[in-house]
């Protein structure tokens, strides 16, 4: 270590690694020592960041894994109370899927159209303002989005109204900015030559956008939307405020509380943090993480398989 002048992080020196020749002066040795120490510090920082990631995944898989069974996935919590170890997450899985689907139905068109506006039409002040505030909106706390839905529907319907639609609106507030930003990036990847070729053939602009721009970037757009879904599917706080928890399946998105996986995990933990509630919470957490990982894999697959960059 003492005679080595390269960074200790790896055996493969990059061009920037050109080892300065140190004089055997005190300052040269000090600089070399600082260099080595900092390389270690930076590497250790990365390793520290891996601790939560690995321990979390291990905990979820180990603790959640022992709960997973066909029964757990296909029963709801009707008639389960006290220390009963029966019951499962069927209703929560369905609720999560329904609410997320509804949120996607709201967010995807609005987000995509806004991205189209920014890339194809937007010039000047409005586009700049929109870009700025879309970025600002990505930082809205999820609980504020939930409160917004509560406040909105308290005025529109009534203060006691609770429904899947409310949750979907709250999630959309969080999802739309994500969709806009990533779709915008995908649309900007479409080469201008394609648009110009279409214009040269006399195709009107709107048809060019639909038939050329959107078709070219379709894989990227789908990937963006899938990733946005993966982002909001685990949101807890807005769902806690808007749909709470119930013990059975509720397929009516316009009326009544709906169970969802994140809130199910939280409420089981809150009811019984040392016994069977904890187990159910970890089981639900595992199901949720598997769903998110699947969405990420799907997104990767789509962007690999259909990406324009590779054609």
């Amino acid at each position: 270590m003492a005679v080595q002048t390269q960074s200790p992080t790896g055996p493969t020196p990059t061009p920037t690694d050109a080892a300065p020749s140190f004089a055997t002066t005190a300052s040269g040795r000090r600089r070399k020592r600082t260099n080595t120490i900092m390389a270690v510090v930076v590497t250790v920082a990365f390793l520290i960041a891996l601790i939560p990631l690995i321990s979390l995944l291990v905990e979820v898989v180990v603790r959640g894994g022992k709960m997973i069974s066909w029964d757990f996935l296909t029963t709801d919590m009707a008639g389960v109370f006290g220390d009963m170890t029966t019951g499962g997450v069927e209703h929560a899985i369905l609720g999560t899927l329904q609410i997320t689907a509804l949120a996607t139905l709201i967010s995807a068109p609005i987000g995509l159209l806004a991205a189209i506006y920014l890339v194809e039409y937007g010039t000047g002040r409005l586009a700049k303002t929109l870009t700025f505030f879309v970025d600002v909106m990505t930082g809205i706390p999820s609980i504020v989005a939930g409160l917004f839905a509560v406040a909105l529907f308290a005025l529109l319907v009534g203060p006691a109204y609770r429904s899947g639609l409310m949750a979907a609106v709250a999630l959309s507030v969080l999802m739309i900015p994500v969709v806009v930003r990533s779709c915008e990036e995908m649309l900007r990847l479409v080469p201008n030559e394609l648009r110009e070729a279409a214009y040269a053939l006399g195709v009107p602009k709107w048809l060019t956008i639909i038939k050329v721009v959107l078709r070219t970037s379709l894989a990227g757009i789908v990937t963006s939307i899938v990733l946005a879904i993966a982002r909001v599917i685990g949101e807890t706080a807005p769902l806690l405020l808007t749909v709470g928890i119930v013990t059975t399946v509720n397929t009516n998105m316009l009326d009544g509380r709906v169970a969802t996986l994140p809130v199910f995990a939280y409420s089981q933990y809150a009811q019984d943090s040392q016994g069977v509630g904890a187990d159910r919470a970890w089981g639900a957490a595992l199901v949720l993480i598997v769903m998110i990982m699947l969405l990420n894999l799907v997104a990767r697959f789509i962007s690999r398989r259909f990406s324009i960059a590779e054609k």
Partner: protein
Amino acid sequence: MSTDVRPDPVDAVAPEPLSDHTKHPGRFGNRLFSGISLASGILILATLVAVAAFLLREALPAITSSTQDIADFTRGLSLGQYIAPLVFGTVLAAIIALVIAVPLSIAIALFIAHYAPKRLAGPVAYAIDLLAAIPSVVYGLWGFYWLVPLVGPFFDWVSTTFSFIPLLADYAPPAKNITSAAVVLAVMVLPIVTAVSREVFLQTPRLHIEASLALGATRWEVARMAILPFGRSGVISASMLGLGRALGETMAVLMILAPFAKGSSFFSWHILQSAQHQTIAANIAQQIREAHGLSVSVLIASGLALFAITLVVNMIARWIVSRRAAFSGAN
């Protein structure tokens, strides 16, 4: 730009003169389509305004009512007295989280951008980004079952060893204090701070790096004299984005922190003591089930305060970042 023969594909402004040709077939379609996409854009801006407006509208009853009206819910505190300790707890938790997360993130971003071999940089960045994909409720479970028992003995040691520092004094197990919650918040904001810092570090002009190397700088000296000064404003805005996230995070705090008793008004600097703090977001999530009528209004008023704080923090962060690069945390 639009008269350029080969316009930069990244800068895809549709060539104006060319798109003017549609006097005939597609005119209606053009109008309709540009109208809908413009409307979507405006709808997004309107949503942001609506969030503020509806929160304000629902918070007004609490703001205008007297202390007696809300005393049942706040245990005798006025609205200001009720919200102020929550704001204090929120900001304190977020700041402790940043104190932990920012140095780590800078180091990790440097590792990815400057130290790691090219082959490793991609997977390393991906591993950090994975942290952002994990739902907050899972972080809450992890914090409660894994982290709290683990850090308890450490806090105990710190508290007894440094008991002369009031900030660290008087730890009592279990470690359901604001520092534990802040550690989880730190893990949660790590990906965004790292991602933004990394992007900025990667933009350091190659010539700056090569010039420092030519002058005989070591790898660390390149980082300290070329990369870090270049990325300073980026790191600041990344930290503020992280601050915004940490301020608004609900579940991790709700599940880990033992809050102060309802109706007490605490501004405690004892960051290792439990039952001394509470954050706005966790308080809303905890109280909303029993709340109705004016109580909901009180909670929404506290949510409005949170919204205002995070909005300002995010706007400053975005303003700094938008001056230099088209990068956002959304991708």
